[in-house]
């Protein structure tokens, strides 16, 4: 009998194999996003010791637990704030925030806004599955109008957030959106985003077969992939106000923003230089 060769997962060096199997449902797009991220890391040839991943709470929030990097699983909505501390504490690190739409846009919206405004050098990978999946399918700020969820049993009435527009308005330097179908392009986008100094945002449209698709009767993961295939349109540099996503309508994907702005650390250092000569060596002290 031929000895069966032990199969090695191609990403084994980047994943915590001792924690596999993961918790994600069959057909979920988060796994794809993680693969894209790990491929991006390989492509980047970055020093893996200097990359750290911060996640919040939710399905996507579990990513930090599966990637073999320094990784933090923090509180709900606060990964960006936590990451800000890490980045400023040690500016050499490459900080990646990997979390979901509910985590980053709903409860963490304020941190998203202000980290973008300050242009803190980090990459935010926001997996948008249109719903709170971990808690069982509640309405999210990204849920399209009229879609059903458990807390909008009669159809959603709130206009969803347009993540790229928000990111642009707040001052992000790189904004892209891809679906879980566009693996190659998504990987490239993550590479670009991580190379870009400043606050970069990659939105990943992902399927949620267990809640979003089931409640709205949209089929399984494969059906969603088909839907993405038929309905996504690549339009680079599209003005971000056109990027709203309507229920089961066309999804515009692409790279929308790529601009330069000084990062927080740049401005901070500049400021330190500026004031260094202005201040007395030791502040005024009244010796007695």
């Amino acid at each position, binding site marked *: 009998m031929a000895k069966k060769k032990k199969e090695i997962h191609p990403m084994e060096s980047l994943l915590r194999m001792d924690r596999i199997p993961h918790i994600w449902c069959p057909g979920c797009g988060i796994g794809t996003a993680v693969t894209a991220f790990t491929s991006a890391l390989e492509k980047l040839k970055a020093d893996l010791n200097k990359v750290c991943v911060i996640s919040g709470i939710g399905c996507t929030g579990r990513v930090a637990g599966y990637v073999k990097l320094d990784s933090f699983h923090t509180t709900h909505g606060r990964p960006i704030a936590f990451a800000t501390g890490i980045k400023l504490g040690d500016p050499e690190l490459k900080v990646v925030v990997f979390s979901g739409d509910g985590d980053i846009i*709903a*409860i*963490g*919206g*304020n941190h998203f*806004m*202000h980290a973008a*405004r*300050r*242009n803190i050098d980090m990459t935010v990978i926001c997996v948008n599955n249109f719903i709170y999946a971990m808690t069982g399918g509640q309405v999210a*700020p990204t849920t399209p*109008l*009229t879609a059903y969820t458990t807390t909008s049993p*009669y*159809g*959603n*009435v*709130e*206009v*969803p*957030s*347009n993540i790229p*527009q*928000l990111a*642009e*308005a*707040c*001052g992000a330097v790189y904004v892209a959106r891809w679906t879980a179908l566009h693996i190659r392009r998504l990987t490239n986008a993550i590479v670009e985003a991580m190379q870009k100094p400043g606050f970069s945002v990659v939105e990943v449209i992902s399927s949620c077969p267990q809640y979003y698709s089931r409640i709205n009767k949209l089929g399984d993961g494969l059906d969603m992939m088909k839907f993405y295939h038929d309905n996504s349109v690549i339009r680079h540099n599209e003005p971000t*106000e056109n990027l709203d996503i309507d229920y089961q309508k066309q999804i515009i994907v692409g790279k929308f923003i790529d601009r330069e*702005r000084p990062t*927080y650390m740049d*401005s*901070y250092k*500049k*400021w330190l230089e*500026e*004031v260094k000569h*202005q*201040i007395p060596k030791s502040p005024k002290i009244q010796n007695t």
Partner: protein
Amino acid sequence: MSIITTCLTNAVKKSRIKKVCLVSDFLYQREIVDSLEFDTFHVTRGRPIAFGTGLKLANPELKVIALIGDLITLGGNHFMHAGRRNMDIVVICVNNFIYPKIAGNTTPTTKVPFSQYAPFERPINVPHMAKSSGAVYVARWTTLHNSELTESITQALQKSGFSVIEVMAPGGSYFAGIPSLKNESELLKFYYENSVIKNGEDTRNVEIIPDNKIIVGKFFEQERPTFLDSYNAQLSRVMGDKFKPYV
């Protein structure tokens, strides 16, 4: 401050709206609040919009005005999401450049160096943020433009939906954070010399940049169903006659 009070009172009179209710957070607006002749709430920092959401939904007859010191710090998230929902609230964002009560610290709208330690953060573009969040009415005025401001508040009150008016106002003894300005009249003169009215300007371009002119005007207006409109419409569509609209 007194200028805003007058504008606000006049606008409420002009708009002929009976049930008005004003919610503000801390910092400086206490004086306004106390001199007004309608219900006023002074709540925790950053939460007037969330508080106002509760007031509005529990009693849809109310017209809620949220008067905010420097909203986009603590309350940024509520701002963003109330805009998205198109909650029927008029937000008057009083931009003091720096927190008047708390000197010496940068806030998101800090513009000019106010001490030897220059703030190194980028100010937020409030009108653009409002528009991106989904506001239906966006304007910016300085306290110099009091008639325009009154008109703007009146229009916003008559409009249903999330309206945002940014008001550049002097804050206490720190006049716009500009050390060279000594008193209120000098500040108004500063505004006179340094502001330019551009109605309908793209909100992307109205960022406040040091040494550039402050662009003021009514930038944006649109029609969009409010939260309660879409709530009633959606539930009526799904449930038919069984559903009694929530008003």
